């Protein structure tokens, strides 16, 4: 476990290193030009502008790399398997600029805009993206269509975001412990996210700004306003209030401007609604201890009647219901219900595109 400090630009094949050694780039360039045999190597360049070039897709699954004052690796090629990539200490000192490979962990740095992994293209696979401590130091920035991330986690400092700009596939986004620390920020049209869960501080949202498709948004379980999803413009299958206590407002979804298939109020939490502000469409609701939807805006709503097990509130006055209303529905005084049918005996299947079977 010695530290090898470079004194000039070097290639891996000329370097004498042993398992678990540390390579301090000391501002120089290290070119990895063949498949390494050593495991557990750490590459660093503290306080200097060291860089690494990968000549091919090598197995570096037990290696870790941390940027210094500039981006460490310009391109991680397809076929690369890397343990961890961490951004550095200066502005824009990213772990990598472009990634096509497989990485276990990408972590933001302490510098401003120091992303762990920037630009993850189709074929890239990342297990975990974690926000850094610098301003806007995202774990991963821009996950494009065809790229896959398993977990994105917000950080400990204000506004520390795990993953920013998703066009691809993410399994889990979780808010952090700092204020405004989204797990995922901006999910675009082609982007899909399975689960968004609020963190442990104010606006530590699982996901903020959804223009794509999210399966489940669940509020956090702490005593803070940590939403599962903060602003929805497209489609969310399920918004469920969190189990936060005290003064918590851990709503499943804070603002819906798009379509939420089902909203469910929290079974605990002081005021954790499935949806706090609904400007868009909600098709099914299930009230528990808390309301599924707290504040409605449109005087007209279109719902799936059998799925209304809870209260629809003023200013709603006109309810178009596909099928008869559930006996568990509570409607505003004076509201009228118009029951709709496709006329051909079809039953709603609950798919996101509203298919019938």
């Amino acid at each position, binding site marked *: 476990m010695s530290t090898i400090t470079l004194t000039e630009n070097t290639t891996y094949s000329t370097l004498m290193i042993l398992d678990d050694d540390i390579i301090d780039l000391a501002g120089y360039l290290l070119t990895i030009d063949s498949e390494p045999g050593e495991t557990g190597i750490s590459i660093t360049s503290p306080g200097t502008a060291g860089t690494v070039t990968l000549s091919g897709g090598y197995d570096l699954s037990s290696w870790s790399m941390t940027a210094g004052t500039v981006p460490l690796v310009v391109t991680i090629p397809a076929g690369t398997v890397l343990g961890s990539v961490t951004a550095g200490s200066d502005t824009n000192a990213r772990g990598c600029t472009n990634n096509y490979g497989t990485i276990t962990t990408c972590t933001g740095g302490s510098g401003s805009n120091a992303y762990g992994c920037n630009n993850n293209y189709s074929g890239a696979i990342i297990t975990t993206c974690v926000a850094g401590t610098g301003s806007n130091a995202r774990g991963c920035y821009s996950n494009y269509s065809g790229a896959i991330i398993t977990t994105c986690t917000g950080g400990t400092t204000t506004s520390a975001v795990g993953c920013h700009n998703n066009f691809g596939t993410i399994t889990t986004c979780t808010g952090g412990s700092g204020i405004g620390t989204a797990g995922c920020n901006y999910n675009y*049209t082609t982007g899909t996210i399975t689960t968004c869960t609020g963190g442990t501080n104010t606006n530590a949202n699982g996901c903020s700004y959804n*223009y794509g498709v999210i399966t489940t948004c669940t509020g956090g379980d702490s005593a803070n306003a940590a939403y599962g999803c903060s602003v929805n*413009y*497209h*489609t969310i299958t399920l918004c469920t209030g969190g189990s936060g206590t005290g003064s918590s407002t851990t709503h499943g979804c804070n603002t819906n*401007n*798009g*379509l939420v298939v089902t909203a469910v109020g929290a079974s605990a939490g002081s005021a954790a609604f499935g949806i706090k502000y609904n*400007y*868009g*469409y909600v098709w099914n609701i299930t009230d528990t201890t808390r309301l599924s939807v707290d504040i409605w*805006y*449109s*005087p*007209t709503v*279109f719902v799936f009647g059998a799925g209304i097990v809870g209260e629809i509130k003023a*200013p709603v006055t*006109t309810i*178009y219901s*596909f099928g008869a209303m559930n006996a568990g529905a509570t409607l505003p005084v004076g509201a009228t219900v*118009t*029951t*709709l*049918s*496709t*006329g051909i005996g079809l039953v709603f299947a609950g798919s996101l*595109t*509203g*298919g*019938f079977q």
Partner: protein
Amino acid sequence: MATITLAANTTYSTLMIMSYDTIDLAGYSLTIDSQPYEDGILITSPGSAGTVTLSGGYDLSTWSMTAGTGVLIAIIPSGTELGSLTGGSATSAYGCSTNNGTITTCTGGSGGTNASGCNTNRGTITTCTGGSATTAQGCYGNQGLITTAVGGTGTSAFGVTHNYGYVLNLTDSAVLAVGNWNSPAVFVFGPGVVGQIKAPVVTIYSLGAMNAGATLPVGSSVITLSVCG
């Protein structure tokens, strides 16, 4: 049909007017502080930034109001019924900033960009029509119900843009009835859709068959509904 020109900030209850009079705010504020009984009153403030405050939700269903050079009404309270509301003649001279009531006709302005009839609608508007000035939308942001949207004549003077709520019928002119859609699912009255529904809409629930004049996003599907019984 006289024109009463204000010379100071005034309340309705101290004003001497008769049905079908015109009130020129002349840059002053008029507070409507009780339920009026006159019909057909027209409120204007041409060339000046007059304002109207509604102290409660009154029946003004035969009244018309047009903004001058500033926002005419900040908030139209729930319970209000207003005949027509029109944007003004200067940039962002909205008819109202927020509508929580019911308006028969909301129209964009004629002389200023962004002079929408209603900047944000959280209530009910029967018809929202774009104006003749650039981006003078009938309604800028709809979070409520608009029965019919009609495109205007000014550049991007949509009937409605940023539609988060319900627009049931739409009629495009040279300008789209609805500029920006938000929800991937919409509920419309099919026979009344004479214009373009755009992405990100992917699912259209149509009460009755869609009008032949409807243009739908590529790949979208229409589910036709009928009223039971």
